[in-house]
């Protein structure tokens, strides 16, 4: 598999097309946080909304456009973290960040398990310029969580 094929694995192309979580929705929850992020290299934007259900990520939805990497990444994110506890979600974010920094090397099994479909993004780590694309949705999620938790306090 060439680096290019590794980067654009079928699972990534599928997620890019399906876009889980696309379309902002009202989570019907009290603690809601939203974040708007821009990838200034290309002008891509995302708005992501999180609803917390106590210590659980109750709902993730988003709106925006971007390259297949950024779209697939936020789709995977949505699938992964919806329903996770805040603690699990933090671990997932941590693992995804580690994957991006791994320069294309796979992570240990524990973290791979945590990432599920998201392990397919391993190829992105070889292209520093694209890490920003893959992180766009995750940065928005992190920021939205902060807002949602502030809402709580």
């Amino acid at each position, binding site marked *: 598999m060439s680096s290019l094929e590794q980067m654009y694995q079928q699972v990534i192309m599928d997620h890019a097309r399906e876009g889980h979580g696309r379309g902002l929705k009202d989570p019907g929850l009290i603690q809601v946080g939203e974040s708007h992020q821009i990838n200034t290299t290309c*002008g891509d934007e995302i708005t992501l909304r999180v609803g917390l259900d106590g210590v659980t990520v109750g709902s993730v939805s988003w709106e925006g456009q971007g390259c*297949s990497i950024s779209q697939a990444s936020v789709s995977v994110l949505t699938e992964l973290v919806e329903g996770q506890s805040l603690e699990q979600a933090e671990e997932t974010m941590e693992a995804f960040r580690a994957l991006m920094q791994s320069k294309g090397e796979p992570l240990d099994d524990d973290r791979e398990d945590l990432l599920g479909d998201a392990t397919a993004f391993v190829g992105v780590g070889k292209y520093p310029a694209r890490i920003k694309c893959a992180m766009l949705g995750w940065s928005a999620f992190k920021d939205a969580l902060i807002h949602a938790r502030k809402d709580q306090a």
Partner: protein
Amino acid sequence: MHLPDLRADFPLLTRTVRNGKDLVYLDSGATSQRPTAVLDAVRDFEERHNGAVARGAHLLAEEATGLFESARASVATLVGASHDEIVWTENATAAMNLVASGIGNATSGIGGEESARYRIGPGDEICVTETEHHANLVPWQQLAVRTGATLRWIPVDDLGRLILDDLDSLVNDRTKVLAFTHVSNVTGVISPVATLVARAKAVGALTVLDACQSVPHLPVDVKDLDVDFAAFSGHKMLGPTGIGALYGRKELLDTLPPSVFGGGAVTIVSMESTAWHPAPTRFEAGTQPVAQAVGMGAAANYLMELGMERVEAHEREIGHLLREGVSAIPGVRLLGPVGSETERDVIGLAAFVVDGVHPHDVGQLLDDRGIAVRVGHHCAQPLHRRFGVTGSTRASAHVYTSTDDANALLAALAEVPAFFGVSV
């Protein structure tokens, strides 16, 4: 008449990328590569002649000053200016800002009565165009914020050509500055300079030309164009980074107040007040990019030896191949007109959009094939917005670009839709 193969002059072009693939460099619109003649001129300066310019009494200072000024003369010759009408700047962006900030500073009282003619304020207008690079838009937009003047702009049509129908109302008696690009870095379209300058002159507005994409690719004579100011960069014309130039009519430069203050630019300084040199020195505060100026001078000489007419002819050929080729690929949309094969209307670049595929993804596939292009908005967000897209992919040529390079791009581009599962 056309250029010989110049690849051997450019060391970087011989390197391989991504697992041993030959490099196909089509990102010269962003930054060009440098010939050995330029690299050696800089190295020789640094190894043999480096000294404080215009400040020392010793041999090195003398030699450095001589090389620095003769580089200025070379750049002046390239664009048809007099040597004291060329101000060194960090890049073209700094050059355009120098004019905008100078006007802002005059308005704030800097430069005193001598600079009063540059003052602008509420009721005055500054006119730009919708096709501008951010470097020739944001300085004027912010000058408007600073002074209370109003920013207006000339719109473009679906092919990115300036719409001149309302020129007389957009550029009117209240217009103090008309700033526009000579060549768009997205569409490659060459602006109707004569028409714009004539209108500016009729209303007494200053003209500021963004010559970033013209000086490296076309014969440019600032006196023929009859503009008041023109800006361009070293790194886009085969010279080093860290150096650019502002052309300005001597009498205008001599009274425009500086906006960077420091040593070398001043005649008499007391704690209370400062008197400035005439141009160009008044704008060259602090230790200048001396070695880089020497490099830009060497680049100007290299281009003049090739002959700008031949450069233009060569690049038009490649450009036409690219633009026609891109337009012919199903599912790919060229931004701007295809242009003529013989007329001076578009320079040698092609920016395009692949239906259903994001520019980042297009660029990634090309990169995998060893082809270097630029993706994104190319610092022209308003123009991309006008075209209804956030970004595009751009392939751009220079003197060393071959038809093989263009063909490699076209072949790889044809694979893009299928690779990303888009049916055309």
